[in-house]
């Protein structure tokens, strides 16, 4: 019974296919948040992704940031939540706040 996708395994599969990848990880949460610290979202340069860092509220923004990280080769710490100026666009409906580390997977 495979219940949760395994983002780390997916990254290795993508690498085997010659694709570039990034890993997003929930680093901090405040208040209510749908996914705990440590949750992973794996992203390929093509925009494919597996796993989750929220209930779907911010995945789009994280995937975009991950593609940017793949392009620049630089990690980035993203901040989402009610205190964020992007709240109205991609904020968390649950009212929580989370930080997500996006890191390119390099050779």
């Amino acid at each position, binding site marked *: *019974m495979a*219940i949760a996708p395994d983002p780390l395994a997916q990254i290795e599969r993508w690498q085997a296919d010659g694709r570039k990848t990034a890993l997003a990880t929930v680093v901090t949460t405040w208040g209510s948040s749908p996914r*705990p610290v*440590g949750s992973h979202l794996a992203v390929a340069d093509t925009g494919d992704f597996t796993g989750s860092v929220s209930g779907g509220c911010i995945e789009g923004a994280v995937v975009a940031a991950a593609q940017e990280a793949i392009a620049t080769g630089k990690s980035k*710490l993203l901040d989402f939540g009610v205190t964020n100026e992007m709240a109205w666009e991609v904020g968390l409906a649950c009212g929580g706040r989370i930080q997500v580390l996006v890191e390119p997977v*390099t050779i």
Partner: protein
Amino acid sequence: MRSVLLHALRRDLADKRPCATVTDMASDRQALVSGNAVSGDDFLSADHLIEVRRRIATDRSGVIADTQIFVRVYTPPPRMVIVGAVHIAQALAPMAKIAGFEVTVIDPREAFVRSGQLADIDAIVAWPDEAMSQVAPDIRTAVVTLTHDPKLDDPALVSALRSPAFYIGALGSRKTHAKRLQRLTGDGLSEADLARIHGPVGLDIDALTPAEIAVSILAQVIATLRAEPA
């Protein structure tokens, strides 16, 4: 993250070794801490390492206070050992599996073990004392006895109490549990030992059906697993 670190991490996961990736978000340096071994970048102080190992032991990912250092802990799934392939086990085993536990059902009655929802759950068809020495409960293992039958439940509880299992629960009314404690005291177990047993098992949610009782047991197991360490 560098590929070499990712591959090392995946090997630890495959071998079910508790470990952690440690990332200094200020400088992008990264290490993998696994048992006594540290690989990757060399930036962790002795104090950091103590903190990382404490976090691995208690399965607590997070940022180390007053630093930019993020620790992502990976631990093998917690285990649940269910003694008695009874009705409640039919509900509890699949629920616990969905919640992420590695589930083993112990019952010497083969027909019970192979029936219904238990068909695809790992089972040991043997008497509990023999089976329990085989599963060797550790600090990430919950043991739940459900048979109601002292000759099955009691030996399992005695083994569980001699192990570091984080949760031990025994099905039975207050009256049944009082009698059980009397018997086990006769077996030389101390009051402190016996206080580890959750009995009657499960959170008090007025559960009625086997599935509802399974929910109350699983909820209590999770609450115990996730409780802040004292």
